[in-house]
């Protein structure tokens, strides 16, 4: 019997090696798998490369992982925010590496990894400093920049509902990077607020089929902004 439901976050994250590349879903307050990030801090792997749209807010979640000195490099599109002081401090003192990528190229590089694409030409960023040193090509009169896939050793995503086969549904704009990152890592761990029996999710509504998911951990819905809801639904 297939059962991807892990008994704990600790069990789901066991075996993560130092130096791993970790894809972490979320955009703003929506879809950030904070419980799994906290689990990473406890798990203890170091020298990580983290891929996320941002580079942490405040002092919790991704910022706490950075603050704990576990992250060697961040690949993201928008590190600078009003409360990104942890990243800002590490970056300014040269203790963290940054690979800045336009957001659409970031999403597509992750998608390409999951889809087995070797590299692709994107028009985004052509002629800008973010394309410096990259191969370019004119195709049908338009200029493109060669972009390479971003493979993860581990993807951490936040979903809404799942079953023991690993099928997932998301909630509103908390979907963001989740379905793409789930495809691009050797191992994908998702938190869900609700575990249902096989067949209870309409197959037409499953967004991430279980083939892309290794482990599922059920977590309570937290009535905070970071948890995705100000008030419990």
């Amino acid at each position, binding site marked *: 019997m297939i059962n991807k439901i892990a008994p704990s976050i600790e069990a789901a994250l066991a075996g993560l090696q130092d130096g791993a590349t970790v894809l972490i879903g979320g*955009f*703003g*307050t*929506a*879809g950030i798998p904070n419980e799994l990030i906290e689990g990473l801090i406890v798990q203890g792997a170091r020298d990580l490369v983290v891929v996320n749209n941002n580079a942490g807010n405040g002092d919790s979640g991704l910022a706490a992982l950075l603050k704990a000195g576990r992250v060697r490099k961040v690949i993201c*599109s*928008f*590190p*600078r*925010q009003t409360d*990104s002081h942890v*990243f*800002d401090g590490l*970056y*300014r003192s040269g203790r963290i590496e*940054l690979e*800045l*990528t*336009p*957001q*659409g*190229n970031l*999403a*597509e590089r*992750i*998608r390409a990894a999951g889809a087995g694409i070797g590299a692709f030409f*994107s*028009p*985004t*960023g*052509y*002629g*800008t*400093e*973010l394309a410096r040193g990259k191969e370019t090509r004119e195709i049908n009169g338009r*200029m493109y920049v060669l972009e390479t896939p971003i493979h993860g050793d581990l993807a951490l995503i936040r979903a809404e509902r799942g079953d023991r086969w690993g099928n997932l549904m*998301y*909630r*509103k*704009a*908390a*979907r*963001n*990077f*989740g*379905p*793409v990152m789930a495809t691009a890592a050797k191992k994908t761990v998702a938190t869900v607020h609700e575990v249902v029996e096989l067949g209870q999710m309409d197959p037409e509504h499953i*967004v991430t089929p279980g083939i892309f998911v290794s482990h599922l951990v059920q977590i309570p819905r937290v009535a905070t*902004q*970071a*948890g*995705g*809801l*100000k*008030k419990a639904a």
Partner: protein
Amino acid sequence: MSYTPRSKDQLAQRVARDIHEGAYVNLGIGQPTLVANHLPAGIEVILHSENGILGMGPAPAEGQEDYDLINAGKQPVTLLAGGAFFHHADSFGMMRGGHLDICVLGAFQVSATGDLANWSTGEPGAIPAVGGAMDLAIGAKQTWVMMDLLTKTGQSKVVAQCTYPLTGIGCVKRIYTDLATLECSPAGLRLIDLVDGLSHAELQSRVGLPIAA
């Protein structure tokens, strides 16, 4: 002659007037979001948000905020009936693939031929952050910029060549400003309209570039 610059709301109104029925539109962070408040009554326009929303509606009533439903600026929004959610690669595929009709962005500088600089001032020591700016700039069928024409010190933000780091090359089609609306093309600038009391000659001298009538 004296003239009064367009207020932020008047400028948003001016941009909104040019948005057509049925348009798929992305409004950038900051000033462009004001355009949503001035869309002509009686037409349907579908707003796109880069984080995976089509059919984005206005801000929710106080107490109704849902932090799984936010816009690109991370503020809570609502979803109109008929709206849809999708993942990030699809969302940026909509942009890059030329499916959005209009994208309205703020800018530090725009060149006469439509080069855009709006993501970085290139200040040493500043932490670079680009977000979706480069994808938006080159993706939509039409990219419009909305900004004050002059800096606080009176220099034109419409320039022969951008001195700030570029976001995209030749991607801006129109520049809506507090003093005038301009069209960019490989041939240079063309005047669409200007505020009452400002002459074409005075506008050209403020910008310091030829502007075709």
